[in-house]
């Protein structure tokens, strides 16, 4: 499903990731852990092809970073659910519209959009905040909107960057149980996090440990 072959990606100012080899299969639940600045978010950005490797190649689904055409990137991203570390919600529209947008760009029918959006908002416990704008929500609520937006398109891979940073332990636990269920149904999940407790929820998860842009252990 996802493979990294000798991937190096360096930012103009230096830091980045180096010599990454990695394989994620459908059905995998992968944690990427490591200190701040280790390169976890960079790995995720390489997967959704926001940045491209300077060396090596990234293959996701049937797309290859060295060959993909610009036109194909949206197609790839429609298959991937992404929960960004900084949420990236749009303050000019409400919670419903933020989540629905994800389906509009995939050309889903309005009627279907409606049912799916309400369903997913309820599953993350935001049924009562549908008409709020993101800046009227608490940090944890915003994070859950971001999660809903990623889940609503039933992705084949879910990328989650520190998805519980603003959630209290109870909500975090609920989220992990939800993700576990989704994973069981066949969605691969790649999660970058500092919260080592989360790992306990997924006993059969694979763990990739990073530091200073390199993988230092992988299971």
């Amino acid at each position, binding site marked *: 499903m996802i493979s990294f072959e000798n991937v190096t990606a360096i930012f103009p100012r230096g830091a980045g990731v180096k010599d990454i080899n990695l394989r994620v299969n459908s059905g995998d639940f992968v944690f990427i852990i490591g200190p701040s600045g280790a390169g976890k978010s960079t790995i995720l950005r390489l997967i*959704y092809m*926001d940045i491209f490797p300077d060396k090596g190649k990234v293959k996701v689904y049937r797309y290859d970073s060295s060959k993909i055409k*610009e*036109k194909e*990137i*949206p*197609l*790839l*991203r*429609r298959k*991937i659910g*992404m929960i*960004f570390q900084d949420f*990236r919600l*749009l303050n*000019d529209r409400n919670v419903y519209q933020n989540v629905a*947008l*994800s389906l*509009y*760009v*995939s*050309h*889903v*029918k*309005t009627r279907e*959009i409606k049912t799916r959006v309400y369903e997913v908002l309820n599953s993350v416990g935001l049924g009562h905040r549908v008409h709020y704008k993101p800046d009227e929500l608490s940090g944890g609520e915003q994070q859950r909107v971001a999660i809903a*937006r990623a889940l609503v*398109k039933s992705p084949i891979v879910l990328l989650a960057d520190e998805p519980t940073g603003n959630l209290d332990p109870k909500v975090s636990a609920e989220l992990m149980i939800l993700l576990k269920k989704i994973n069981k149904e066949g969605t691969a999940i790649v999660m970058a996090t500092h919260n080592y407790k989360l790992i306990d929820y997924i006993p059969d998860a694979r763990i990739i440990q990073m530091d200073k842009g390199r993988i230092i252990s992988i299971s």
Partner: protein
Amino acid sequence: MTVFFFLIKEGFKGLIRSQYAGLFTIFIISISLILIGLGFVISRDMVFAVQKLKSQFELEVFLKYAATDREIEQFYAMLDSMPEILHASYISPDSAAKRFKKEFGEDIYSILDYNPLPPSFTIELKPIYRNVVSVEGIIANIRKNPIVDEVKYRRNLLLTLEKYQRIIFVIATLVFLFFTFVSIVLVSNSIKMTIFARRELISTLKLIGATNTFVKVPFFIEGALEGIIGAIISCGFFYALTYVANNFFYHFVYYKIQLDLKFYVGLISLGFLFGLIGSLRTVGKFLGKIG
């Protein structure tokens, strides 16, 4: 269909959200269209006036006294057959004398005891030949006939009119090109500004899998809308202008501005085009730079 309506809605919303940038564009487009429209009306009416002056333009062909009736008839026939000539009319010495009396109030025979006026023709040319070059050619042709004594026309008038017509045409074209250019550049800039203001929306859309078209279309719609609204404002201006000019100032200017539906449709099409081209120019180039 869902997507189509969604994009149209986003275009409208964008226009409202962009606020000042949008107002700017609309304002600039309406000013441009007003100036282009004025340029058009003024040059049209001036060209019209020149044309009217030109339509009064005639050649006068004076024949020799010795010309026989037969020769005159043949000459008449020749004139009639010339493709450049719209209409030629014969003025016999007698009718010339009558005209003289009408114009000067005195009988020519009371001054002299013979009629000094030669037989002549006045010739109206077809409009396209009413310019110095053609006229000189036609005259050269007519002069070949031995019975022709002299051909007169108001060369200077014609030259002046031609010069004016050319100047008017050049100025109108320049005005048009200048404001077309300004409009399109300013629409582009305004759309750039809008894109810049919504870079977050755009990069988020791209990140969640929107195609370029999906991101672009609302901007095109926004640009076109701005163009159309700007054009409608300029239409309002011209409507008010003709109303005021024709109802209140008619007595001063002895001139009625006439604008038909075509003119208004033209303005709106121009506005639409400016808006659309302005956004087309920018969106493609500028969008790539965002996320």
